């Protein structure tokens, strides 16, 4: 999973590198990419001819209903066939859906990595939370050290019931920092970005199961034998500005990728 995450994240970094001047540029590119990729997956994993046929049948049954609306028997039969062809049409979409879901997940994870949170600003505070594996070291054996530019404001808050230790940190200077979490003599890094316009912000570094690692691709996973399960920073949520309002990335991405998909299905010759 580590290599997969590195490759995918690196590819997205490369793709978006020219568009960091404004967050909307990257969002437009990611939405266009999403629209195109999903159309292509749909075309190559679906039975295009059968979908076309199902749509034609649906249209013909609709016409039948309109033309023979005075003949109840014909209308009822047409409606029954309409329902059947609708189901058939939906059935043809099931197979591509199976292929599209992983792609959508990858896209969403990568977009969230870039648009879900923003770096800390100078003077801002965040909580750094270390989760320990059960049966491992206790909360008293965990310590934290910060480089100049970051200040650890509190002693450790120990929550033995959920095997978690928290600190409050404050950003004092712009920079890209590495905090060191020390557990039983072993050191583990956690990256923290302050002030600068970072291409992506990794809120959580984890060493737990595959799924958890897939959802947190921003940093290399923790070693499998590490006594800590994850290290997380409570970065503030990010939003996209639009006419004085702030939007979560999901809305522009949904709308724009649908718009791109609709606009490009003709040129790409995709029956949807």
């Amino acid at each position: 999973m580590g290599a997969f995450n590195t490759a995918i994240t690196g590819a997205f970094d490369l793709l978006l590198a020219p568009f960091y001047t404004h967050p909307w540029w990257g969002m437009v590119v990611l939405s266009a990419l999403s629209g195109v990729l999903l159309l292509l997956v749909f075309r190559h994993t679906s039975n295009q001819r059968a979908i076309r046929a199902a749509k034609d049948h649906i249209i013909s049954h609709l016409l039948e209903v309109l033309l023979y609306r005075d003949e109840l028997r014909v209308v009822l039969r047409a409606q029954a066939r309409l329902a059947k062809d609708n189901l058939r049409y939906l059935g043809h979409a099931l197979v591509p859906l199976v292929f599209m879901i992983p792609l959508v997940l990858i896209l969403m994870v990568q977009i969230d990595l870039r648009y879900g949170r923003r770096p800390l600003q100078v003077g801002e505070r965040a909580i750094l939370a270390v989760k320990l594996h059960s049966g491992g070291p206790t909360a008293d054996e965990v310590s934290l050290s910060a480089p100049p530019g970051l200040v650890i404001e509190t002693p450790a808050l120990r929550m033995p019931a959920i095997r978690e230790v928290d600190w409050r940190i404050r950003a004092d200077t712009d920079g890209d920092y590495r905090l060191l979490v020390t557990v039983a003599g072993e050191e583990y890094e956690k990256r923290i970005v302050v002030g600068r316009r970072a291409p992506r912000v990794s809120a959580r570094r984890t060493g737990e199961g595959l799924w958890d690692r897939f959802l947190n691709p921003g940093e290399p996973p923790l070693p499998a034998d590490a006594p800590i399960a994850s290290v997380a920073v409570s970065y503030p949520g990010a939003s996209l500005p639009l006419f004085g309002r702030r939007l979560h990335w999901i809305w522009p991405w949904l709308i724009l990728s649908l718009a791109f998909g609709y606009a490009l299905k003709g040129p790409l010759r995709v029956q949807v």
Partner: protein
Amino acid sequence: MARRAPSSKRLSRAPDRESPRDPGKRETLKKLAALGLLSLTGLGALSSCGRRLTSPLARERKLIVLGLDGLDPHYLGRLMAQGKLPNMSRLQEMGGFRSLASTIPPQSPVAWASFITGQDPGGHGIYDFIQRDPSTYLPYLSIARTEPPQRTVSVGDWKLPLSRGKVELLRRGHAFWDTLAEHGVPATIYRVPSNFPPQDTGTKQLAGLGAPDLQGTYGEFSYYSEVPPERADKITGGAVYPVSVRDGRISARLMGPDNTLHKDSPRSFADFQVWVDRDNRLAKIVIQGQDVLLRQREWSDWVPIRFEMLPHVRSVTGICRFYLKEVSPHFKLYVTPINVDPMDPALPIAAPAGFAPELADKLGRFYTQGFPQDVKALRYGILDDGEYLHQSGIAFAEARRMYEHALNQFQRGVLFYYFSSTDRTQHMFWRTMDSKHPAYETRLGAEYGRVYEDCYRASDDLVGEAMEACDRDTTLIVLSDHGFAPYYRSFNLNTWLRENGYLSGFDLSQPKASIFSHADWYQTIAYGIGFNSLYLNMQDREPYGAVSPDEKQVIARRLADDLRRLRDPDTGDRVIENVYLADDVYSYSDDTRPYAPDLIVGYARGYRCADDSVLGDVTDPVIQDNRDKWSGDHCIDRSLVPGMLLAAKPIQAPGPALADVTATILAEFGLPIPDYMSGKPIW
């Protein structure tokens, strides 16, 4: 046909290309352009007619008015003489410094309403913090009234509104900024009292004193403790919740506003958890996906809280700050009153509505309740003096940041900015600098004796900032609505009325009773509600009136004389300086008359109406020492607590009053003073 039927794009481009070659068409176009211009000019003139008549001075002059609630001219003069207020002294040298006559009574909602409208209380209808409804005798807050939706439909347990509820400003009269706007002079009004909800008449306004918290009160705190204070059930203005730590964790509930969408209107709430580390004296509050980690004796930033009204459909958002008072040995967590979130206001705290979110976007979230200082928490010992000062310091820092922003943005017309911290500090800390006060302690004096003076010094800094923002076209006026006096002794007006036969129906053996549940109204001649208001129980006004209109004058004068003669049995001092007959001092309008008191009690220096009596209670004894932390006051006779006036121009008026400042603002822009205003320009 080919020319007449092209697309609109072609039609708009064609004249440019063809006009040089076609003189006839060019002439036609010229005529059309001239006609269009004429129409536009005509429309412009029509639209301005009757709406905006630009004052010739509007473009030249600017005026900054700084309102510092409760700044006392006598104390101020002393500090200025000692050279401790350099900016104010400089302003005095540039222009002038005077005492400023306050209203009858000298209370902030009354006085600032007079400043806003240029009228006496009879004109604007705000007579006291607390007034009574003549049809029910029941008290209400005088500035605003909230009405639920008139039409609703019931669906199961839910009560869905079909019309909007209403929040109504009870202040009557025309605000000076509306007069300015009618003459093309823009104004921006920050936090002036008696202006909730602000009326959207085109002037940018942010509500001040009178704006409630999300619960609709003047501020209701929450306190979670393993060792709740004694008599916690007697606390008003807040609620105490006992909690216990289990497995390092506390589960609790933050109460929100009433859920008016439910048929029983239960209170909405937000559950939260607190993780406690007693050894390291830390706690983490986890609420609605937000984590707040605090050390002992630390305040949090603003935390937005969503209260669900109709699940997944309707919720309201408020903001609060957490204060981790103690972790060890006992857990104690204080939560400020839940303020309206300026980013998403659930109540109309600004006009236009977008003004509050605009400010929050630029400056961050801020206190929106009219009284941001948590005085109730201090009075009941939930916060100690140092903790209260820290909290009020946070509120002041926020207000100051907004003030600096307002000064930076100010370009034309009038800027008004108001600070309440001066008033609150003097209310709460008089006891630390006056050894005669019953609540004075030497330790307090040593620790907090300078707070009072520091508050004046901070005000001087504010004046300095305003002076820096002034250019040669800008005039600066600094004013307060009243001064301050000690509050040594509490006078139970209703108890005195009962003992002197004016109020009937009470069982004298009862330690405490309320006029609302115990009065024999048919035998009651007079009753007190509010800080200075005294009402006759009139047959032609109250439902169970005992005084006929013919008797009114005689009874009112007799009662006034009785009160004026009153002496404190313990000290021999006069308790009451003066009693005013409202008919002699107010100019009513028809809709403000029924709510006016009949007599206004002007207490002597050192005395004030007891809290119990303000709310209609009857308690023993008639007069007692005031040992409350609320130790300074101004709800006395207006001659004893004038406000102050400092201006950058020489003040000609020998004894200016608040309404004169209103007249001056209009005169500064060359506008006529309306007949309904009682004031005259001060220069």
